């Protein structure tokens, strides 16, 4: 409930945006499952982000336009009488690109700690790989063990990373506004 209250306006905004893009409601980013936990001076995230692309974005990808997905993670500390305190924030940049010669999709995740680069045959696989959080370690310090924490996650398509001529189109088209909105997940002990 607390998390709900906190992100109420964000949800509302997301809802409005969702209503606005109802026509292509199926194609959007969605944080389906995240399991955050603390382990050894680090926040470890596991889960999946469903990265549904709209037809326009899919076409652009297939034409060799590199896409960059930004995954934002924020760690909040619960406070009884005040708003929750943001303890740490990370921004992960992951990109996907079609390699025409090999007919594969190249996925690179510039996650902290591990630089992975994969070649995948199908777009579906590539997107799945792009959206998967496999024990992602996000390091930080100064955790008070008694407090309760929550994690907000959001995934969105970075329009600014698109080629310059595409940016005005992307900004003015709902098809390019792929954004999961903030989702809140409780950190397990």
């Amino acid at each position, binding site marked *: 409930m607390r998390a709900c209250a906190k992100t109420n306006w964000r949800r509302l905004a997301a809802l409005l945006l969702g209503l606005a893009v109802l026509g292509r409601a199926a194609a959007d980013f969605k944080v389906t499952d995240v399991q955050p936990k603390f382990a050894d001076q680090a926040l470890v995230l596991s889960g999946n982000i469903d990265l549904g692309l709209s037809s326009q974005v899919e*076409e*652009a990808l297939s*034409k*060799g*336009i590199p896409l960059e997905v930004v995954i934002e993670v924020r760690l909040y500390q619960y406070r009884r009488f005040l708003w929750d305190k943001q303890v740490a924030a990370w921004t992960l940049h992951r990109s996907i690109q*079609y*390699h*025409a*010669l*090999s*007919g*594969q999709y*190249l996925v*690179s995740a510039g996650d902290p700690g591990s630089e992975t*680069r*994969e*070649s*995948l*045959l199908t777009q579906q*696989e590539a997107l799945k790989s792009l959206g998967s959080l496999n024990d992602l370690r996000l390091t930080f310090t100064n955790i008070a063990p008694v407090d309760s924490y929550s994690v907000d996650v959001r995934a969105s398509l970075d*329009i*600014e990373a698109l*080629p*310059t*001529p*595409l*940016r*005005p*189109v992307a*900004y003015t088209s709902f098809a390019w506004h792929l954004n999961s909105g903030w989702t809140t997940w409780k950190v397990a002990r």
Partner: protein
Amino acid sequence: MESGALKEVRQARRGHGAGDASGAGTPRERTEGWNRYVTRYVTGVTPLAVLSVLLIAAFIMMNAAAQNSALFGRLYSVLLLVNILGIVLLLALILLNLFHLLEQYRARVTGTRLTVRLLVMFVVLAVVPVSVVFFFSIQALNRGIDNWFDVRIERALDDALLLGRTALDALKQDLVKNTQTMAGEIETISVTRKIGGPRSELTLLNALREQYAITELTLFTQDGKIVASSSDASLDTGTLLPDRPNDAILAQVRQGLVYANLDAIGKSGLQLRVVVPVHPREVGAPNRALQALQALPPRYAKLGESVQSAFADYEKLVYLRGPLKFGFTLTLSLIALLTLLIAVWAAIFSARRLAAPIRELAEGTRAVAQGDYQKQLPVTSHDEIGILVESFNDMTRRIHRAQSQSKRSQQEAEIQRAYLETVLGHLSSGVLTFNQRLMLRTHNPAASHILGVELKAGERKPLAWLAERYPLLQPFTESIAQATAAGDSEWRTQIELPANNHSRTLMVRGTLLPSWRGKRGGYVVVFDDITTLIQAQRNAAWGEVARRMAHEIKNPLTPIQLSAERIRHKYLRQVEEEERSALDRATRTIIEQVEALKSMVNDFSEYARSAQLRSRPVDLNDLIRDVVELYKNERGLAAAGVVPLHGAADKTGRKAPRPVATKLELDADLPVVSADPGRLRQVLHNLLLNARDALAGTPKPVIRVSTRAVAENLHRLVELKVQDNGPGFPEPMLGRLYEPYVTSKEKGTGLGLAIVKRIVEEHGGTTHAENLKEGGACVTIRLPVGEAALVEAPLHKLVPAEKNA
């Protein structure tokens, strides 16, 4: 625009000054000041100029960004946003300016119409070319972008990619075949050499890798664990860990399928990956997977990468054709819009700037038309308009100078005129001026008075009109007409002017006025009423005659009388009886006639007697009552030596004496006059006697005596009127009533009125005799009020003294 800003600055300064004067200033003033401040910065030249420069800079950067410049690529969106916002702001500012202008236009502020016209002209001049350029630029841009793409190039690239793929496929198939061969060998080894496990497999892998020239050869268990691996030392992977296939590949291999693919491995290029299942020969042993990684030969790698990048770039470009056009069109549109807006703004600015001096000139001209000759305009430029403004300033200065000069001279003329008018107004002589055509131009009050006509009506009328309108003035006008016709520069003449009951004598002098600018000057005619002067001369002559006569005649009278009496006394008894009566008659006649002569001579001497007034304050009313009382009382009358009023009947031989009614109408508030009461009494006697005599044949004789106070020409006067209802004065005598021996009576010296007039004149008064319209005669006497007497002796003290006297 600049002038507007200037004006606002001036206003702001003024406002500032006012604010200083009033201290802190009211909130309203502060609000107005703020508003002015805002207006100045919103409609001024600076914000628009700054904004325009910023926008142009932003557009330059955006253009660079659109061409994929690394420097501005990141800023592209921000620049775009800034530009759009800036254009909106610029648009708002321009609209505000236009609105401001429109308001002024509606309020019909001077110069706005010109500004609007110039503005429209400038805008049209700017918009049309920009629009044309914009339209053709868009066309050219679209065509240019379209020209980048060519079907043949596209097909060639596709073919190149296909060729590359085919070549790589061949390599891949070779590798698959080799790997399967290797897998077969591994299978046999695992059967023959059970002991040794991985060690022996590693040896085999190394051998196989070297045999088949494979970059990396790895044996996995079915769940992905590495059994053994051999890699080319020359391959710099940076890690000792062998490359592990992902789960999808392993799953594929578990199902007994072969995986073969070309992997793109980032910067290090391409590699072939083949994973084949390794089926153990013996039953129950787990399946394994053999992965062979083969780096492409450098030549292949280079060519492949080249084909890939070219194809990818081209594909990207094809895909981005639409957005690129959109982006360029957007940039171009924004630039065109910006140019247009700046042009519009410049038009507003220029129109205002051009119209400002003209507007000021128009305002100045209007001010001059309304009579403000002190208007000076600021000279802001040195071009033709500046010269115009300078000329305007010079003109207003001159007009102002001339106007003040004319005003001054007008004032002087006014003063001169007032001076002349005062002099003329208080002149006792009548003054008339005529222009060269003998039209009456000016006249003074004395002229009207002397001529007895209202000259006001005759202004700017010819002399003939005057003669026609007032026939009595004919001798006067004729004399002027004759004299002017004669052309004398100076003339004088004496004329007789017939009045109602007597003629008046005027002395008329005329002078030709100096000519001016070749025109003949007018005439000035000055005239005096010299009737009284002539009268006085005549009176003086008569007085002299009377005095001489009295002197010359009176002397022999007494010896004559004495001699006659002696003759009578001596010879009356001596002569015969019959002659006695004749002697008696003769001597009696001599004595009687001498007596009559004596009384006549006495009258003359009375008339000729020089004035020796013993003036003192007299209440005229009391005096009148006294005298009239005497006439009622016979005895008193006899004592006073006057004939009773109704005694006239006896003298005229009428049978029944007819009593004369005397009516007194005396003003109770009559001021005191300073006079000799004895002589005034004589005046009254004479007047009453005259009236009584005149009433001899009248059926109902009434004498009316009235007094009143009048004011004439600032002098206070006491007026005494004695009027009767008799036949009046005989018409021919009216002009000479006051001359001695002018009488209508059978017995009379004709000295009565002459003496009255003389006494009145001695007192400084005037006498006027006339016939009344309703019948009867009226004599009016006016005496000046004795101011000094009034001060010296108040009225209530004077009255008893008079009565006692």
